[in-house]
């Protein structure tokens, strides 16, 4: 594997570890509640009354599906971009030499 690929996989590994370590270290008895929701709870402790409610609020199951849809659309567009860019580069006449690995 080239140095380029090794560094890329290490970056992926770093992101996975940063997400996995809290789950493993802190343990399963933590809820990992969303920070946005914690802010709402903190405000609810005062006598503040929200003056506007969401126009449309999906059920929790639907919401998780919509979040997945959001990620899927974004991932799809990103994948399409890299596919097109890679193909273009492959089909292009080799006018410029491929660049060396960028400094890490």
């Amino acid at each position, binding site marked *: 594997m080239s140095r*380029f690929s090794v560094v*890329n996989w290490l970056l992926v590994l770093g992101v996975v570890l940063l997400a996995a370590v809290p789950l493993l270290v802190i343990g399963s008895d933590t809820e990992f509640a969303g920070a*946005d929701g914690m802010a709402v709870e903190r405000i609810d402790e005062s006598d*503040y009354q929200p003056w506007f409610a969401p126009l449309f609020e999906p059920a929790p199951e639907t919401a998780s599906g919509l979040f997945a849809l959001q990620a899927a659309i974004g991932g799809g*567009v990103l994948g399409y971009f890299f596919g097109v*860019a890679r193909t273009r580069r492959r089909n292009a006449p080799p006018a410029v030499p491929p660049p060396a690995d960028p*400094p890490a």
Partner: protein
Amino acid sequence: MHIAEGYLPPLHAVAWTVVAAPFVVHGARAVVRQVQEEPETRLLLGAAGAFTFVLSALKLPSVTGSSSHPTGTGLGAILFRPPVMALLGTIVLTFQALLLAHGGITTLGANAFSMAVVGPWVAYGVYTLARRLGGGLSVAVFLAAALADLSTYCTTAVQLALAHPDATTGVPGALVEFGAIFAVTQIPLAVSEGLLTVLVVRLLTRVSPAELARLGIRPARQEA
């Protein structure tokens, strides 16, 4: 960083909307200009928007025992300058406010200011400074993306502290509380976002070096 619907008093909601609106309008013009003047970068522009779309949907656990999500605005700000991200970030926030009840219409101005204005400008400033100081592309991109992420959440904490000062300790006390909720949770996530953005930029230097060069992003340390 999504302030929930109705959780900013009307005066604050209006004020943040007034502050954010010019950036978003200017951003819309910047997107149109970018597409007209450099149509070959259209696809890359879409990819930068898609990156924000994905990252802001991913809620990740943090060492504080709570979850939050990255913002993904650093990449587009580095590639296309911050105004473009003012529009793209606001589109993402609008999608989430209308379809997911995540954030809200009354808080869209405040949320757009933190995620689509402050984050991108911090990213651009940090990137430019790091490159001027002789930093490599990866180092500059990492710092820019991570600090954009973190500054967005710090902005949210300030916005909430101003709107909901603590009964006894006032705005500073509230800032400490909201800062603990948002900023501390966000530190590992900001590192994640930095790493992911470096990964994407590295891949971009491979698949579309010509577009990057046109946008002024150069892998080598010398200034263009």
